[in-house]
Structures are given as C-alpha cells and as structure tokens.
C-alpha cells in the first residue's frame, strides 16, 4: 500500500464566519505504482486533498500514511514527507525564480541537502526526462522560455527530488495541444519506466481515460465514486449531475448504439473506438 487516507476532514477558517468544510470524512487507498485520476468540479476539494498528501495542510481530523509512514503525526520531519511526495501545482511556472534553468531545477534537490554531484546528476536527468535538451536550456533564464517549456522546467524541479509519489494538479491547463500531449506522455513515461505512483488532477476526461488505472471522483468535499475508468464512466448520468462528464468518444459510441448499431458502449479512447467501428464495418 502506497497511500492510505483514513477519515480525513478539513475545515477552513474554523470558528469564523468564513468557515467551510473542504473535505468531509474522506477514505482513500492507493497502491504502489498506481496511476490515479482525480476528478471533480471546481471547489470540490481536490486541491485541498492533494495538499494534505505532502503536509502543506494539516487535517482537522483523520490520518494519512505514505508507505506506512504516518505523516499526520506530531513532530514529523516535513522534509521527509516532501521528499516522498512531489507536488506540482497548477500553473507551476509561476513558482520559477532563479536566474538560470539549472539553478531553478536544483532548488529542490539542494533543499534536500544532497551532494553537489548528486544534484548535478539529478538536474541533468530530470531536465532530459521532461523532454528538454539539458545543453540548450541549462544556462537560459526560465523567464525567456515559452509557456510549454516553462511548465516543463517547473515539473522537472519537482521530479528532481525523486519522489515516490508524484501529484500533478492540472498539469496541462493553458497549454497548446502539442505541449499538452508532450507533457502527458512524459508523465506516462515517469509512471511506466520509473514506477512512480502518480495522481493526476484533470478536467479532461479524454486524458483521464487514456492514462489512468483508477479514477476518484470528488463532490463537495466527499469522495463519491472510485473505480477503474470502465466502471466510473459507465455512470455517465451521475457524472453529468456532478458537473462532469464522460469522454466525447464515449458519447459518440452511445449515440451509435442508440441508433441501433451493434457496438460496444464502454469505450473511452479514440484508438479503441476506431477498432470497434472498423470491426462493425468489416463485419457487415
């Protein structure tokens, strides 16, 4: 078991007129090396939940353990938690501050107190890992890069800390389609090659359907639905009532089925749909 969350509740601004319950008794189990998709409308508590996972927020009540290590205990070394769990915020490029890309990516590893050689190795590795050329970008100012490149440098800054769990909050928001695909495929590589547990927060059902092993659905601070994409996306009406939806291709397949075609409905990626439709055409 990689992550275990028990009865997690978080209340913002407790005992003031602005009091709001952001998380209400959430229970989650995430296995080692799983790729999790976290979905929910804005304000459903996703961001609050992921900030608990690396100790940025303390729960009002409840317990979280990462690989058997209780991070909600009093007196836990936060550095330890942050080394285990990497968190990439929304628009992570807004956190860049150093003069050069190299120094910025090195910020995390330096804070961990690693040796110079190790830092150098990790910086090189993670910049290449996010699909940038180390040689080209290392001495450039992060502020003169393009939006997609900035985003990748920021992700590299977290990857360089070699976390066991990597959480990404809408890593593709505001990117053009090409950068989006690149960022997503690099995340996939991180998961497949390095066996990192990944939690991806996204509003794109297509991306979720294509990448993840398991989906968690949140609504008003409650975890309302969990399961493999097939299970979760089969409840399309329920998802729509939460302000979410299913991948567009699934909607297409449903329409085809409704019009009397002999076709499977539980299809969530364009590739699978192509196969299925080809089968139908050839079968005729």
């Amino acid at each position, binding site marked *: 078991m990689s992550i275990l969350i028990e009865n997690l509740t978080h209340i913002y*601004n407790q005992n*003031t*007129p602005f009091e709001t319950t952001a998380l209400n008794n959430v229970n989650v189990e995430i296995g080692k090396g799983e790729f999790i998709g976290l979905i929910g409308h804005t304000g459903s508590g996703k961001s609050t939940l992921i*900030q608990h996972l*690396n100790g*940025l927020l303390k729960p009002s009540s409840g317990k979280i353990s990462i690989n058997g290590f209780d991070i909600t205990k009093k007196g836990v070394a*936060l*550095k330890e938690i*942050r*080394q285990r769990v*990497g*968190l*990439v*915020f929304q628009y*992570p490029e*807004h*956190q*860049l*501050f150093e003069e050069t890309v190299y120094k910025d990516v090195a*910020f*995390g590893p330096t*804070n*961990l107190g690693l040796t110079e050689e190790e830092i150098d190795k990790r910086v090189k590795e993670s910049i290449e890992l996010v699909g940038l050329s180390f040689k080209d970008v290392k001495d450039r100012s992060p*502020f003169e890069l393009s939006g997609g490149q900035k985003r990748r440098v920021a992700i590299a*800054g*977290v990857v360089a*800390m070699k976390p066991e769990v990597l959480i990404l909050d809408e890593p593709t928001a505001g990117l053009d389609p090409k950068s989006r695909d690149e960022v997503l495929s690099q995340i996939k590589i991180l998961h497949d090659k390095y066996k990192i547990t990944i939690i991806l927060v996204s509003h794109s059902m297509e991306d979720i359907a294509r990448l993840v092993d398991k989906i968690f659905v949140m609504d008003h601070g409650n975890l309302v639905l969990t399961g493999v994409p097939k299970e979760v996306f089969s409840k399309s009406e329920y998802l729509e009532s939460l302000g979410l939806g299913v991948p567009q291709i699934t909607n297409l397949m449903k329409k085809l089925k409704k019009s009397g075609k002999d076709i499977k409905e539980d299809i969530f990626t364009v590739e699978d749909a192509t196969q299925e439709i080809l089968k139908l055409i050839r079968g005729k």
Partner: protein
Amino acid sequence: MLKDITIGQYYPVDSIIHRLDPRIKILSTFVYILSLFIVKDFTAYLYPVIFLAGVVMLSKVPPSYMLRGLKPLFLIIILTFSINIFLTKGEVIYQLGPLDVTKEGLHQAIFMGLRLILLIVGTSLLTLATSPIQLTDGIEKILDPFKKIGVPAHELAMMMTIALRFIPTLLEETDKIMKAQMARGADFESGNILNRAKSLVPLLVPLFISAFRRAEELAMAMEARCYRGGENRTRMKELSFHTRDFIASVVTMLMIGAILIDRFI
C-alpha cells in the same frame, strides 16, 4: 500566520454600524482618534471606552474576532509598554537587574498601552464594518471639496480601491507560491535572520512578477472598457444621509465634547 491579519478586512454582517454612511464613519473614526490623544488621565478614558464598546456591540462583530487582529501587533504593544515602563524617570518601586521600574513609568506604560490598543481596535472596526467600496466612495466624497485646489480625489480613491481589492489576491498568491516552494523543500520558518531573509527570494521574485503581470492585465481590461477617470462619471449607488447618520454624528460629538470639558474645564 497570514490569516490572522484582520486589519483592513471586512466582516460581512448586517448591523446599524454597517449601514451608516461611510463619510460619517470615517469622520467619526477621525474624531475618535483625536479624542484618544486629548485624553490625559485614566478617568477620561472612560468616554472613548464606552463609545467604542457601544459601537462594537452595535456592529455585531464578535469582540474575540477583533482581538485576534491585535495579535500581529502584540510585539509593538509590548515594545511600547516596556520602553515606557523602564525608561521613565521617577520614584523607583521595583528593581529588575539594572532596570528601574518607576511609579510614573508604570502609569505611563499602562496609559500608552491602553491608547495603542484602543487605537487599533477602533480603526480596525472602521474597515470591519465598512466594505472597501463604500470606504473609498466615502473618501472620494470627503475629498471632493479639495478637487478645486487640484487634489485628484477620484484617482486617489480608485487607486485605493484597487489596492484594497488586491490585498486578498496577493495574500492568496503569496500563500500559493509559498506552498509551491515548500513542496520543493523550501523552509521559511527556521534558521537565523540571514537565512530567513535569503529564503524569501524564492517567494518574492515570483510574487513581484505576478503583481506586475496582474497590474498590466487590469490596466488593459480597464482600457478595454473605456475607463477614463473622474470627469462626468456617474455612480450606481449615490451616498445619502439618513436619521441614523445624524444620531451617530451627535453621539460622536458628545463623546469628544465630554472629553474636552473633562480636560479643560
């Protein structure tokens, strides 16, 4: 830490104090501050204290909430208190190492401490019970007569509105960047002063960049909607005086009147 700051924060409830005309509230606060500086002995503090207690009660803002606003200023209050208690010359009543506590010092320290607390609570009540928009509307109206001598009243008010409007935004932004850097192992809470100052760089650089970006975006958005200053501008909500505003002014006048009589007659 950041959420403890209540100065400049608005507390949204409906009360008679909230409904008062902002001009009256600003001027009354001004008179109240003045009165605190006229008071010269403990008994005369009774008037502003009663006045403040009355207003706090009517405002429906919980006193505990207001006292929380004192927390960040605790250091200043303690500092004022200690300077006064140790550095005032007079009859020595207690010795603390090389420092003498004098009777006059004790008197002075409590007096100044009380003044400071009353000052902070009174002024924070103004912003707690007045929405930022109303506040700047009030300031603009008060400054209106000075337009003739070239005071850019509208522009000043607009700048204040924007500044106030962006305080929560910038606090939120600070919080976000702080968290992002903490997620990368940054430590803002321990170490000596030099290290702490250094650790602020990863926070301040992104914060400045985003503040400039926001300013530019806002300016552009205002231009796009044809904003052009105060000339011929009409407003949706005109300020007007009601009976309650006259009562409030009379009460304020009575308070400062009582203090003046107490002090000079």
